[in-house]
């Protein structure tokens, strides 16, 4: 039996079109972390970020049958999520966005004993201090996004993702060494 990561996104879309809930669940598991990265990097607080991601999935439910390129569903989702974040910022009477991550206050999990939590917090703080483009790109790539998905979320030519990634990583290393 193939593991879930071996199944292509296009195949999952085709199976979900036939009504297979397991295929939809697999899409949700595969892409929700990336969409969350996009929404949080854009500076949306927790509930607004959840709203943007959920709106993105609701759009896919309605359009899954008419997607032109099922294989590119990740890029499609990233683009829709970017627009949803944008709409939330522009919504009338929207609360002002808060800096990303300022309401992150999870209880330390069992994992925190086995990793250097201080180091991870410093790393996350350094990323938050970076320009939005670097922040979104690195956080997306850390969530296993492809260059195509990053280019869709940031509205950049796909060819520029590699060079910008290298610059952003260099910059992040620099600020950690300070």
């Amino acid at each position, binding site marked *: 039996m193939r593991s879930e990561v071996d199944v292509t996104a296009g195949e999952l879309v085709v199976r979900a079109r036939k009504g297979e809930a397991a295929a939809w669940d697999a899409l949700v598991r595969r892409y*929700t972390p990336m969409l969350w*990265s996009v929404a949080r990097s854009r500076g949306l607080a927790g509930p607004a970020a959840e709203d943007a991601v959920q709106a993105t999935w*609701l759009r896919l*439910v309605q359009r899954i*049958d008419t997607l032109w390129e099922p294989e590119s569903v990740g890029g499609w989702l990233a683009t829709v999520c970017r627009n949803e974040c944008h709409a939330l910022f522009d919504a009338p009477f929207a609360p002002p966005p808060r800096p990303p991550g300022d309401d992150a206050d999870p209880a330390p999990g069992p994992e925190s004993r086995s990793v250097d*939590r201080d180091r991870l917090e410093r*790393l996350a703080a350094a*990323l938050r201090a970076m320009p939005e483009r670097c922040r979104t790109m690195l*956080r997306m790539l850390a969530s*296993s996004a492809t260059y195509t998905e990053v280019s869709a979320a940031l509205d950049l030519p796909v060819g520029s993702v590699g060079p910008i990634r290298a610059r952003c990583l260099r910059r992040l290393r620099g600020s950690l060494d300070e």
Partner: protein
Amino acid sequence: MDELLDELRRAFELLDPPPPALFEAARAAFAFRDPDASLAELTRDSTPAGAGLRGTSRLLTFTGENVTVELQVSSAGPVRVLTGRLTPARPATLCVRHSRGETRAQVDESGHFVTGGIPSGQVMLHFTLPDATTVVTSWSRL
């Protein structure tokens, strides 16, 4: 993967993971799938001048193949009152889908409908026409 990116992945998994409820909500969205429905897309969204004296009011228009849905949204605290018209006019059953479930209403022969108590957030209108075909609007944040 770059070592630093791998560290970043661990950092955000620990410090700011997607909430489990988000996965649940996204999974549940599949239940709204209705491949046979005709989709009416949002084509106009405006807040008329002078609105907001007694709550805010928004006018939305959804356009699909041979169908238009005009919707006026009034705020009454955290809930919304929807007043609208389906064109061409015909009676229909309306099911408003929102974050807390569904609210049902009837569309009269002139195509008009009204329904209240809709929670703010993502909302979609699902019409069942007399010939049993269905029309849905795109999800909108009301």
